[in-house]
């Protein structure tokens, strides 16, 4: 029984809408499957609860990947947040979620009461989601799991713009997505992508920042080839 291939769910890599039956558990016995975002169990069926593309990570992880303007926090996501308020114990950070996130003032590498960082309102922060549930505000941290700063923290200079969550996921995909690869060949720039649909770009000259950010925004609906040719035409205009 176990040797049987996991029923591949005809919908894998296809678009699903809420209510679509993704898997029928009655046909699968003695199997474990893991459900991710956008799926739920309803008696003997697994149904989609959000619209998007159904993904399968072999052997048994299923989830629905969608592109939205709003971000639903989930643990271990790297996000770009904007400080909107400071409290004695926490910074209140907007991460485009349904509620503001807390960033404890001690959640920095070597953080103690003595060396609390000073962030003015509007500071851009690259952080990691450490707690996310539906009843509490999400919690962020500027340390990785081992307590190191690991690139997290305040982002200075540069330019930040909003994208959809789908686009930011595309930018983070490996192998490197075509638009970043094509840009990286000609220009040097720094980039930080938050899974919450925010991208920060920095480069020595403002014109490069503008080219990179516009190329990324335009690449949302383009194929790989389309992205490369779009970047080429943009760079031609620049030079």
């Amino acid at each position, binding site marked *: 029984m176990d040797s049987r291939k996991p029923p591949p769910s005809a919908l894998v890599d296809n678009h699903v809408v809420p209510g679509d039956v993704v898997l029928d558990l009655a046909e699968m016995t003695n199997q474990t499957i893991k459900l991710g975002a956008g799926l739920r169990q309803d008696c003997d069926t697994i149904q989609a609860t959000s619209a998007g593309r159904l993904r399968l990570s072999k052997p048994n992880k299923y989830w629905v990947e969608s592109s939205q303007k709003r971000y639903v926090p989930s643990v271990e996501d790297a996000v770009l947040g904007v400080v*909107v308020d400071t409290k004695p114990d926490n910074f209140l950070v907007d991460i485009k979620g349904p509620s503001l996130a807390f960033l404890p003032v001690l959640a920095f590498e070597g953080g103690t009461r003595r060396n609390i960082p000073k962030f*003015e309102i*509007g500071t851009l922060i690259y952080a990691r989601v450490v707690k996310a549930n539906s009843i509490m505000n999400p919690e962020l941290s500027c340390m990785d799991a081992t307590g190191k700063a690991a690139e997290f923290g305040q982002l200075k200079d540069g*330019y*930040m*713009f909003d994208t959809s969550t789908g686009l930011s996921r595309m930018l983070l995909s490996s192998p490197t997505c075509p638009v970043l690869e094509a840009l990286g060949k000609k220009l040097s720039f720094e980039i930080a992508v938050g899974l919450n649909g925010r991208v*920060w770009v920095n480069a020595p000259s*403002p014109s490069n*920042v503008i*080219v990179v950010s516009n190329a990324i925004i335009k690449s949302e609906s383009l194929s790989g080839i389309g992205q490369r040719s779009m970047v080429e035409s943009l760079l031609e205009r620049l030079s």
Partner: protein
Amino acid sequence: MDHHQRWRPTVNEREFIERALQSDLRVDGRRPFDFRRLKILFGREDGSAEVQLGDTRVMGYATAQLVQPYKDRPNEGTLAIFTEFSPMADPAFEPGRPGESAIELGRVVDRGLRWWSPEIAVWESRAVDMESLCVVAGKHVWSVRVDLHILDNGGNLIDAANIAALAALSTFRRPECTVGGEDGQQVTVHDPEVRDPLPLTIHHLPIAVTFAYFGEGNIMVIDPTYKEEAVMGGRMTATINSNGDVCSIQKAGGEGVMSSVIMQCLRIASVKAADITSKIKNEVNSYTSAKALQKVKRLPASALKKDNAPDVAMKEGSDVALETQSTKASSDGQQINKEPPSVVKDNKQEDVEPMLTECNPEAQSESRLTAGESDEKQEVISPKSLKDAVKPKHKRKKKQHKNS
């Protein structure tokens, strides 16, 4: 934790936008005096237009209604602009009780829109000929109403709303009406199917062009985006037509600007206004010619309809009148000014002319023939039509179907 406040840029964005502007660069890749891509779409009904200016989207919708004129201007129609800020367009726009910052934004934009771009710009500069909207002096004039719905706020709402209003007014058609009867006071509104509805007389198109100032007022850009609006130090909107006549200038707060800079802005604005005017005119022309072609194709069907139209149409006509009254009554609450509510009463009392239908979108789509040809007929029918009005709408529609 109030999420519903004006969006504030991050420190990084603010600094970058200003730094880039110092070398004449804008974050969306435009040059300082480029407008974003302008797209004008028209709805199926006459007088509805949607304008997309980059990410900004505004819908304009023009309607008209026969009302009593103002006492001091008995032979002029009226034009009123109403704006609608949906929270879908911008989280800062809130329905119900708005937050402090939402009020501030709403006021600034609302004042911007009603005080100048549409109302003063269109009205005071007399873009629309008001005298041609008069039907019976002192008694009946057309009151044109333009509703502007902000669908998406991507910055520079004023210019987009202004273009939407102009496009809506340019395609708007009001039903033709004639004056007759024994006393020469009786107004007949003709069905658009029978007599072609008439366009408004528009003398010129006043175009709003908005400038944003940065730094100490020495850097300026045209058509600011949402982000640039959040960073800018001041703003000025010039309304100007393609002849270069300045219809109005609005400068509300912010950085002071040198008079020489204003003159430079006006020169730039007049060039932009000419571009936008020709764009609007082209779009309107292609829309009207497409509409005219459609009409030619549809002609046989409408000719067929005419045979048994009068009987049904009489009832329908009076129905429509009643509906009109009810919609009017309900909308009176929103209308801050102008239309004296006495008009509604007027219609009820004088059975002679209950046919003062407006260009209601529902009413227009239904086939109706405005009656009022003879007073007797009217009175015979009126009790019946009252019953009809009480019936639920779907039943009425069925009946109409059966009859026709």
